[in-house]
């Protein structure tokens, strides 16, 4: 299945991309996605699907747009 991952903030620079479409096996979880893009899941992150946070164990769906972000405080 195809999912799009969107990174923000410092993750863009540490991983070297901002947005990428990935081909993943059906049943891949959020943790699997993080593994696929080489992010340590222990790192404080916010992972969201369409504006709503999702857990690491949640399965991805075809066409998902997944936001991966560090934990911000704002200005």
């Amino acid at each position, binding site marked *: 299945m195809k999912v799009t991952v969107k990174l923000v903030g410092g993750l863009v*620079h540490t991983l070297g991309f901002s947005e990428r479409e990935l081909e993943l096996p059906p049943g891949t979880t959020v943790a699997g996605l993080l593994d696929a893009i080489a992010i340590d899941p222990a790192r404080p992150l916010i992972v969201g699907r369409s504006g709503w946070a999702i857990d690491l164990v949640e399965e991805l769906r075809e066409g998902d747009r997944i936001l991966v972000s560090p934990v911000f405080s*704002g200005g």
Partner: protein
Amino acid sequence: MDGWTGQFLRVNLTSRSFRIETFSEEFAHTWIGGRGFAVKILYDELAPGIDPLGPDNKLVVAVGPISGIPAPNTGKTIVAAKSPATGGYGDGNLGTRVTDQLRKAGYDALIVEGRADRPTMLFIEDDRVEFLPADEAWGKGTMETNDWIYARYGKGVGVLNIGQAGENMVRYAVVRSMEGRAGGRPGMGAVMGSKLLKAIVVKGSKPIPQAFPAAMKTLGRDDLRTVHQMDKDAAWSVQGTTGVLPWCNEVAALPVHNFRGTHHPDAWKVDGERVHAARVATYGCPNCTMRCGIAIPDDEGRESELDYENVGLLGPNLDLFDLPQVAALNYLCDDYGLDTISAGSVLGFYADAIERGAVAGDLRFGDAAGFKKVLGMIARREGEIGNILAEGTLRAARAFGHGSEDYAMQVKGLEISAYNCKFIPGMALAFGVSPIGAHHKESWIITFEVKQTTRGSYGRDKAQKIVDLQRIRGGLFESIVTCRFPWVELGWGVEHYPTYFNTITGSDWKLEDFWPISDRIYALMKLFWLREYPQTDRSADFPPAAWFDPANVDAEGPIAGLHLDREQYDGMLQHYYDIRGYDTRGVPTRATLESLGLGAEAATAEAYATLR
């Protein structure tokens, strides 16, 4: 008294006199410093009902026990006064060399009273105070004023100054320092202007009293290095706070079109990646190793220092997605000495009011040239519109009428920062109960809310988290006076701060020892408001009607069809009051005040209002 100089400097601009006062160790341990000192001084010394733009108001510049000591991000100073924007207690922090210079001059706070008879620059060097003419700088922007001061004294001095907005008493004029620092959103710059005080310059030569200076030197140096490395690993400073913009856009929390919208397909054009790509310089506060002031060229090639709040409010909120144009508006705000958050909100509100027919005018969303022109009118209070908009969105809405107050995006007279809470109940509450009017600095619950709670819930857990964050951010950090960023952005443990405090003051405090002091500070800020607004009720803690309006929902996107629920918000607000020990009006009960050691303050408040 290790950790504190034990002295305040009181300056009277009317009589051109000054006095050095001492304070006790008990006072220091009760209020810590910074915001704690400021609210206590202002509560005790300001008569309720005074004109915040009159000579009876006082400006307090205060630091804390860890201020200015080399350690992670200790370069902040508090500026406080009765707010011209809200009529309540107002303050803000800014990074400035005043922080260490004031301490080295021998003071933990400067209290400025009265009104000068001509434009004045206050020069403080240790025990010496000079009242210098500032006619030459009056009428000039903050950039030129800063250069004027540096040319005279060099760059090592501490400087606070104002631009034309402060001089003309725009109610959301800020105090500025160094190349790009600003603070005091609720009109602290206007208070300086009302006193004809163009600038404060501070130079000190004394050692800052510390219990264990050698140990603190090692600790501070090592921790600065560690935080610097953490920042490099996280790449946080690469985009600074502008990195939050795409996040807000993705989760539908971005202010677009005067907060009507929550996301926009062109938001990427002004996001952190674009800011980073355009960077020409980076600025930061003293004692900071994670500098977040990213400067880019504006449309005229001028360096404009950006952060998320000003890009959000001066960009998407105005339907502007041209980064150099956004930078130009930001530059003008900085030079005029206008708060970028309030200015962006005022411009958006004005364009919205025109669009909705509440007022006649030709300004339109997306009109960068028009916005620049109006900013100048505001800073100069030029014409009827310049004057009305210089009063802020709440007063402007009352002038325009036609129901426009519903979409004046403010709480208590202070404009909301760049987080659109159309469907983020906890963050809406954080704005509602912020003690200076809507501001994100007290409690930024939004990522916790989205990550660890059900986004649309209104539970006690959110109210509790707001109190927890207020205790750390608004209480601990604003009284010991340090920047919150190492903790919030890099996860630098909050337990480090009692260690600094103890090493500097020789105390043996634990983290939890600071919470009653934080609560005391919040309660006294509330009493300050109560004396000014004796008829206050819980409606003062509600955000604007637009966020509750079913007609204002998003048509598409992550929160399509959703809005805040007034009844459930009210329930969450009650949770907040219950946790805090406040009554149903949002006022601390007499029992709460007494438990916080505020019995005497409660007695003075009762001369003006009823306590329960």
